[in-house]
């Protein structure tokens, strides 16, 4: 009798240790319906009993108690005869040692399917010496909530980024007001605030490729043309409200500096053989932007997630003087070129970007 008690105690102790470990090794997705309902009996009785995995049962009828969500429902088919006379020692198992099942009545897989449970098996108990009815002899069948990854990094690549420059100065370079740009950005979630709000820091680079008018653009009777390019380096931050796992509106504030390169070409005069003239220079200009948008991404089920964002806002930047200024060779006569006007860089913008989160 003393030996029996020791065995039962040992079995319970092993079960307390092994149950969480088994749960930890459960695959995230398991098709529990594929398991045949009777795969656990009768061999499973001894096997499961020896691993002492599940012990939460209703002492009155032997069925699994629906205790909260942490209840493992044991199929009736898995009980052995005499289950209704369960030993008091085995009856109410601590809930902490139970394996979570997503729904009652889910059948467990055979314990033999769990390698971790095969190892460290104690010596099987003799049926005639084991009056204990273990009504949950199999490892628990668990259907977990899908795993959610928490991403901290965001990389954006603008597939369409347009700034509307309505100043007359831009007419030298373009026949319309839209300046198309490409950009790449990198963000990191630095702070989680209450209410699913996240503060992120961002850096980025943007290029405005050569936007130019050619000599046939009609400017001043086809006598002048200009081209403009810009490179921008940005620092900024955004405040994002993760309404759902896949949708987050946000606001963004950016500070940046841009290098504008201006080239102006005047054609040769039609009255003499004098050659054309070129002026070329660059300027650094600072500015800031304030925008708001929404971010869509797939539910975060994998380490790397994808999505898109749409953002609009206002780009505020100092104007650039359009100057007929060049780099004359050394020894040239001191030359001063006129100021044609200014290139206004402020205006509304709209961007559409793809993003990666990881």
């Amino acid at each position, binding site marked *: 009798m003393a030996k029996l008690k020791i065995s039962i105690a040992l079995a319970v102790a092993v079960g307390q240790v092994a149950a969480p470990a088994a749960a930890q090794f459960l695959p995230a997705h398991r098709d529990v319906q594929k398991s045949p309902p009777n795969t656990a009996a009768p061999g499973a009785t001894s096997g499961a009993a020896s691993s002492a995995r599940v012990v939460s049962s209703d002492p009155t009828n032997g069925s699994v108690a629906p205790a909260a969500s942490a209840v493992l429902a044991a199929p009736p088919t898995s009980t052995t005869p005499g289950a209704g006379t369960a030993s008091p020692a085995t009856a109410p198992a601590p809930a902490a040692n139970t394996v979570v099942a997503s729904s009652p009545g889910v059948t467990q897989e055979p314990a033999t399917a769990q390698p971790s449970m095969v190892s460290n098996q104690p010596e099987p108990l003799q049926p005639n010496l084991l009056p204990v009815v273990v009504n949950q002899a199999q490892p628990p069948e668990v259907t977990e909530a899908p795993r959610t990854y928490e991403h901290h990094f965001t990389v954006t690549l603008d597939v369409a980024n347009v700034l509307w420059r309505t100043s007359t100065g831009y007419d030298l370079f373009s026949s319309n007001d839209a300046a198309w740009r490409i950009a790449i950005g990198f963000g990191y979630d630095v702070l989680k605030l209450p209410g699913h709000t996240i503060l992120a820091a961002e850096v980025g680079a943007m290029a405005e490729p050569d936007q130019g008018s050619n000599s046939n653009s009609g400017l001043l009777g086809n*006598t*002048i043309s200009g081209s403009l390019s810009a490179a921008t380096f940005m620092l900024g931050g955004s405040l994002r409200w993760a309404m759902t796992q896949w949708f987050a509106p946000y606001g963004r504030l950016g500070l940046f500096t841009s290098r504008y390169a201006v080239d102006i070409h*005047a054609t040769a005069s039609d009255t003499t053989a004098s050659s054309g003239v070129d002026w070329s220079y660059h300027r650094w200009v600072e500015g800031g932007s304030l925008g708001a948008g929404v971010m869509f991404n797939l539910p975060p089920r994998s380490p790397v997630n994808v999505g898109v964002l749409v953002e609009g806002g206002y780009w505020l930047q100092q104007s650039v003087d359009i100057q007929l200024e060049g780099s004359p060779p050394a020894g040239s*006569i001191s030359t*001063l070129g006129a100021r044609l006007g200014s290139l206004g860089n402020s205006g509304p913008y709209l961007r559409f970007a793809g993003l990666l989160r990881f």
Partner: protein
Amino acid sequence: MQMKMRLALTLAILNACACGNRESRLLDKVDVKGIAPLGGDLAYVQSSGVVQRLNVMGVNPQPKTTKISITSNPRIVIRRPGVEELLVVSDGRSDQYGQVIEPPALTVLPDQNSKREYPLVDPGQQMKLSDDGKFAVLFNDPSYVDTTSLLTNPGQVAIIGLDKDKYPPTDIIHSLDTVGGPPFAVWFLTLNVGTQVGRPFALFAFPQGISLVDLDSPDDKEPKLDLTSWLPSGGMDKTSGFGVAFDQGSAEIYLKNSHSSDIKVLSVAPGIPTTDGGSGNTVNISVRSLTVSNSTAPGAFDVYSLASGSRLLATVGNSVASVTTDSDTVTSVALSTPANQILQFDAKAPKDPNSGQRALLYQTDPTGGSLQSSVTFVNLEDLEIGKAAALETVDFGAKISSVVQLPNLPLQLLVILSGGGIDVLDLEKRHWSPIDSKVPITLTAATSNRLWVGSAGDNRIGYVDLSNSDPTDPTSAVMLTIKSTQLDSPVQQMFQMNQSSNSRVIVTHDQVGGAVTWVDANNPERSAAHKLEGFLLSDLL
């Protein structure tokens, strides 16, 4: 295909989003019709009717201009003689149906940033200014083709008194009583008609005669004269060698043409009032003839005065003739070199320490076929007595293309040679200094003792310093120093401008947006020069 349609749709949407078009004013070419100094500025007159003034006499160079709008389509830009004003004749604008949007006008731009406009009747007229800058006459230009009006009145002229305080800007349009066709030329004369005070007249030349308009009373009926019998068959035009000279004191006008050896003399007398109380003609004209040669028409002629009376100096073939206008007595002296130009001046001569009336006879020919390499000096006061002794020939060794009088150096002539190079001719010493140049000299300007020259399209300007070998003795030999200044762009035009203590040579360059280089006339080094460019586009955007 679907992919293409999607792409096209996307592009269309993007284009629709990229709203905004260029302003139309950015499409118009900056078309400069004329450049002229005005005060301390250089005025650029554009076909759009915008005049942009660039200050070139300031201390610090600034590529900024001030603008003033005038009537569009300017065609003639002339600096008013003797007064710091610019005259611009504009044709105005009409729409495609001939409806006048802007009438033609003469705009006077004074030194200040203001303007006076005189409306004209017809576009496309030519303008002649009096030497003293007091009058402008606009009259028919047969070379102008009016594409809008089917009918025009070629006898309609505008006679404008430019002294705004003396002449009102109204009643300037007059219809001339033409003689055989529209006028083709006009001369300004000052005659003492009945008084010792000169009265301004305009003599209009028509294909078959002339008319004389009293500029002080242009509304009065002008006397006209039919000269058909004296003129070649078919009448006169610009190629007929028609010429006018006048003697103010005797109120006589001399006419010549290249088809007659006679010179017509018009004596102008005060008009006789009509019996009905009207003024009638303000003057009356009587005509007589002078015979200069038996068969050859005069090439050039001019009037000079001696104590014994007025004389007419004329070149006739290879001789020069002095004609006593009262008695029609001709003194003819053979020339070693033919001449068709006369330049009168008062100066000493190498063998005459006293200043006297002299003339320089030389030949020009736009076709270049009859150019000569020598010129003839004539002592006018000694011609009738000394004859050949009154002549002196100077040979330059190369054919003379043109002779340029320098405004600030009246006794130095710039003789431009057709083969390149220039000579500076001292009219007193009758000495010339050869200066070689591999490019044809087409531009000149002069400061007090420095002559600037340039060649359109060349990057260099040159100057010649004229100084006496002994600075304390103005009669000492003139020493020439020549030097060139290289600019960074080809020369278009060159102006010499003075203001207070600044003296600068302003060189324009033919460049989009405008370009000028200003050179300190007293320190013509590159290091002291400045170039301004693009000022016509300043604040365009």
